[in-house]
């Protein structure tokens, strides 16, 4: 009899996200076992416990998911997990803290699609403002977009904090190969004048870009908002928008709302969870891989 598919789900938080549990089971994992309040220092022990009780054949039916809230911690845990493997005793690992990696991937892939279909251009060289960009989704979206060639500026209420996070994104997540800049929320009226794309990834219910600022943006092409709770993060963009022209934009910009992003996010997370089942060699998955599968999905639905 074939052994069951077991996904060991690690989180630094007090509970797993039920969203991720549903996703794991729906992707084909038979058992989704929670490990809570996990300290990064415990990852090695947990991983080694997981890899040494199954044969190589059955390790292909075993994997680890890393949740939690903090992007850097999740990436550190992913690295620690990879480091703890003792080939051929090795399993796949997928980090998606707060679903941020797959959400960010969904958002950037949707923006890229609109740039291509509506404006016949790409992310390369575009100026992107990541409003409310200091949180997990903003960070991951900034890195993904910068790796695709965009100039990304993370905007936060406090410039110093935004700068620290931009530096972390460039160095930790981008290996120093990208440069993400920072800006203060108070200065966004200035930055919007040269923005091609806006990401809104702030807390739910806060308007990050007013109708007045949307109107004042001379080269704005796409504005994406992950917030599904009114009022929307970007004036004129609602949850159902999916490449819909933004009323009041003088540059003909289109909006992408939370549901369109959520749909691609769902597909990306599903594909990565399935990839851990189907892969022959262990894979270590994070925001880059999320973006790859999100792009694939978007292309296959073009």
């Amino acid at each position, binding site marked *: 009899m074939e052994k*069951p598919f077991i996904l*060991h789900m690690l989180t630094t938080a007090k509970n797993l996200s039920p969203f991720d549990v549903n996703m794991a089971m729906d992707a084909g994992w*038979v058992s989704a*076992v929670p*490990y809570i309040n996990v300290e990064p220092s415990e990852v090695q022990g*947990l991983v080694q*416990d*997981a890899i*040494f009780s199954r044969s190589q054949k059955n390790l292909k039916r075993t994997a680890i998911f890393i949740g939690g809230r903090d992007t850097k911690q999740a990436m550190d845990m992913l690295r620690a997990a990879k480091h703890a493997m003792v080939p051929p005793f090795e399993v796949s690992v997928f980090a998606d803290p707060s679903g941020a990696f797959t959400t960010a991937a969904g958002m950037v892939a949707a923006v890229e699609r609109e740039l291509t279909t509506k404006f016949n251009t790409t992310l390369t060289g575009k100026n992107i403002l990541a409003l409310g960009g200091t949180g997990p989704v903003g960070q991951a979206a900034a890195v993904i977009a910068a790796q695709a060639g965009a100039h990304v500026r993370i905007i936060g209420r406090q410039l110093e904090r935004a700068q620290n996070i931009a530096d972390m994104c460039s160095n930790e997540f981008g290996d120093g190969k990208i440069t993400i800049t920072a800006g203060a929320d108070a200065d966004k009226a200035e930055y919007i004048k040269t923005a091609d794309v806006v990401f809104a990834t702030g807390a739910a219910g806060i308007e990050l870009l007013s109708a007045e600022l949307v109107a004042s943006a001379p080269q704005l092409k796409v504005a994406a908002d992950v917030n599904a709770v009114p009022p929307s993060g970007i004036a004129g963009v609602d949850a159902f928008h999916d490449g819909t022209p933004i009323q009041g934009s003088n540059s003909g910009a289109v909006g992408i709302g939370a549901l369109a992003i959520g749909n691609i996010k769902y597909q990306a997370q599903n594909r990565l969870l399935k990839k851990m089942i189907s892969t022959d060699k262990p894979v270590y998955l994070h925001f880059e891989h999320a973006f790859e599968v999100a792009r694939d999905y978007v292309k296959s639905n073009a």
Partner: protein
Amino acid sequence: MQKRSIIHMLDPMQNNSPFDVNMAMDAGFDVLVPYSNVKLDKVYGLTQDAIFSRGPSGVKRTGIFIGGRDLGLAIDMLDTCKQAMVPPFEVSVLADPSGAFTTAAALVACVEKELKEKHGKELKDCNAVVFGGTGPVGVATGVIASLAGASTALIDHLSIDTALDMAKEYNRRFGCSLKGTYASSEADKARLVSNADIIFCTARAGIQVLSADVLNEAKRLKVAGDVNAVPPLGIEGIKLKDMGAPLIHAVNAPGAVGVGALAVGNVKYQLQHELLKSMLETDKPLYLDFRDAFNKARELL
């Protein structure tokens, strides 16, 4: 339709061991549910909650696993489970904290087998020392060996008080007759090794406890077993897969043989698998601890 089998995994620690999770699923349980931070005083209630919702046929498809790090606590939890049963509402329970019961049972059974085959001796004829004897696997090893009749000493690497306290506590609990001592220097180790028929090495992974020089002092050593699978291994000269291979550095103990960590690990794995499976196959509820693990290990070998 037959009900799905469910294993309730109780752990006094924050999380179950992924090792045990894999083992339980692979033994055939359909559904595995973790309970973390379980205090002893909650075990009674959890057990009764588990037995009363499935009917007499459902309880046969239900089991309880007790993990954690602390042997005494695991045994107390097992006893509490047993007391909480209300026949015919009764389910099987297996305690294996840190995998220590199955690891220790496998280690002692492997050593016993070699003792008989290579030296024609029984455990009761022998002096045994347990290096790393105050950790979970060490204590369980000592208790099993002592109950099987070997004159057994738990050895702590630092403190004689720790070793004596442990010996006293477990003698009281299980009616064995463990001694306690310490070995903080090479000279201490040499002295203990020189008089031992059996050496169990259950110290931390990745630490060499007995060097060739120390083994040179062994005069009557017959079998040495090591559970450390991470280099450097616990006893110099024993290879991971050794099962009765000559102990090359014990030059003054003719015929001494070694048992390596993977040889023990293989038996431990089969043992834990069989014990978990027996909970699903049994008609009468089973309450399984290190004693049952040792009996089963002897059967397997």
